[in-house]
């Protein structure tokens, strides 16, 4: 692979240690949250959350938190895994082109015989591969605990949630990478992608609360989970929106990267 795709191979080689640490951390946190469910269901969650207004409960996905699928969907897939993976994807996206370019480390790669398209394409592939590995880790941990603890979450729903999580995280990674490639500035990439993620979360969680349901419909996080990613099954249209949004962002980033001054 290092012959045909030397940049991809090089980036993965350099990131493998960091990726391994992320995988372990993600597996531990997700494993911990998911395995807490049997204890949670022992307590009277309904009573604990009864004081919350119904709208708020729905927004937070707590309305069916007493079921295993509801709990894993809101706590693991809807919160900790989502947040950690977003941090990884946005940070990793900015560190794919903008970070090393800004530090000056990319100068010899950018003046190598490879075209800018290879640099953009192979670095993008490296990011998606890393995201795929981490999403697979989340899936593997949840899948295993589902069997071990007999949570009874339908496997089809779990696969659907995972695929949609993967597309969502890939989308935010792509936004961060594309912004960084367009601007050549790490802070711009991080800031832009993080702002989009926060807005997107707020639109999905709070839009319906204030009677503006359409806010959730334009939110990428809404396309992923609606109210609960683990119980909604596969939504082709929403998945397609994520794919198209990623494609458009990446095309825009490439358009600028191909034309602008590098290393300035």
């Amino acid at each position, binding site marked *: 692979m290092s012959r045909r795709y030397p940049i991809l*191979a090089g980036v993965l080689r350099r990131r493998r240690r960091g990726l391994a640490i992320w995988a372990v951390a993600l597996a531990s946190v997700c494993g911990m949250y998911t395995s807490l469910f049997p204890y949670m269901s022992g307590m009277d969650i309904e009573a604990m959350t009864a004081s919350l207004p119904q709208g708020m409960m729905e927004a937070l996905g707590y309305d069916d938190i007493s079921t295993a699928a509801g709990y894993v969907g809101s706590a693991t897939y809807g919160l900790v895994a989502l947040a950690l993976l977003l941090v990884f994807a946005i940070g990793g996206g900015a560190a794919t082109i903008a970070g090393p370019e800004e530090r*000056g480390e990319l*100068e*010899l790669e950018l*003046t*190598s015989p490879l075209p800018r398209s290879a640099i953009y394409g192979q670095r993008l592939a490296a990011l998606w591969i890393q995201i795929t590995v981490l999403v697979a880790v989340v899936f593997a941990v949840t899948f295993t605990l589902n069997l071990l603890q007999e949570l009874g979450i339908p496997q089809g729903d779990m696969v659907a949630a995972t695929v949609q999580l993967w597309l969502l995280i890939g989308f935010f990674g792509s936004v961060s990478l594309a912004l960084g490639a367009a601007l050549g500035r790490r802070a711009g990439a991080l800031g832009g992608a993080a702002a989009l993620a926060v807005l997107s979360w707020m639109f999905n969680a709070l839009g319906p609360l204030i009677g503006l349901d359409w806010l959730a419909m334009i939110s990428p996080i809404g396309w992923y989970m609606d109210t609960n990613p683990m119980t909604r099954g596969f939504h082709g249209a929403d998945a397609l929106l994520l794919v198209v949004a990623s494609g458009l962002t990446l095309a825009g980033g490439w358009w600028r990267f191909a034309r602008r*001054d590098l*290393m300035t």
Partner: protein
Amino acid sequence: MIAIRELVKDYGPFRALHGVDLEVARGEAFGFIGPNGAGKSTAIRCLLDLLRPTSGSVEVLGTRDLAKHPAVRARIGYLPGELVMAGKQTARDHLTYLRELRGGAGSGRMEALAERFGLDLDRPFRGLSKGNKQKVGVVQAFMHEPELLILDEPTSGLDPLLQQEFLSLAREAREAGATLFISSHILSELEAVARRVAIIRAGRIVDVEDVAILRERAGQHLSLTFDAPLSAAAIDAFSAMPELEGLVISENALTAVLHGSPDRVLKEAARSTVTAWSAHDRNLEELFMERYREPDAADHDGRRR
């Protein structure tokens, strides 16, 4: 090999290059001299397609559009002005990676060059001294035996011994037929390799000249001591000689910068009794400093080629 025509480059509202014209022939060793901020690195980055010209064009190895033909860069060795590499990896990791980007060229020479410059390949880049980092840059630029070497201040950070080693490496490359384009602040350091130099100041080429002609133009420091104060007639005779610049006569001593033949000066001096004399080549730097300082050198000289 290199043709830069009417190259203009703006950074936002700031114009870094105001229409640079340069031509470097195959097999030539060309120096590119100028003070800090003159635009050397900017021009070089345009050559490599890191920067896109605001207007004008650059042609390298027969290609006008490196974006379309990036593979041409396999035949170029480039040493950046400020080399930065990720700190955790060793020099060997970086060089191996660059070799892969270049399709495997340069395997054989990496070790030999590192040894020649006394570079330890197995230490993390972060821990290397400035000079050692520069050595990594030199090794990667030369290791694939490129046809064209574009070197941005190659000797910065190298001690005098290694500067000599670098210069002999550059001469070997030239003898093997490579074309060299070397930027520097210091003219005299390029004298050993370059035949021709361009002088750039504030984004404009002030002069393009053979090093030998510059050397002649620089002249010699001349000083003569006589056994007695010079006569008024002798003073008038010396003062009228155009080849003497900055003539100072005090009592029985004469100093000046001599350009061209010393014949008339010696004949006039021989009318008196000369008790001591000296003449030595003026440092090219001194001439160079004059050029830098002359505020309107570009207007006087035009943009000669």
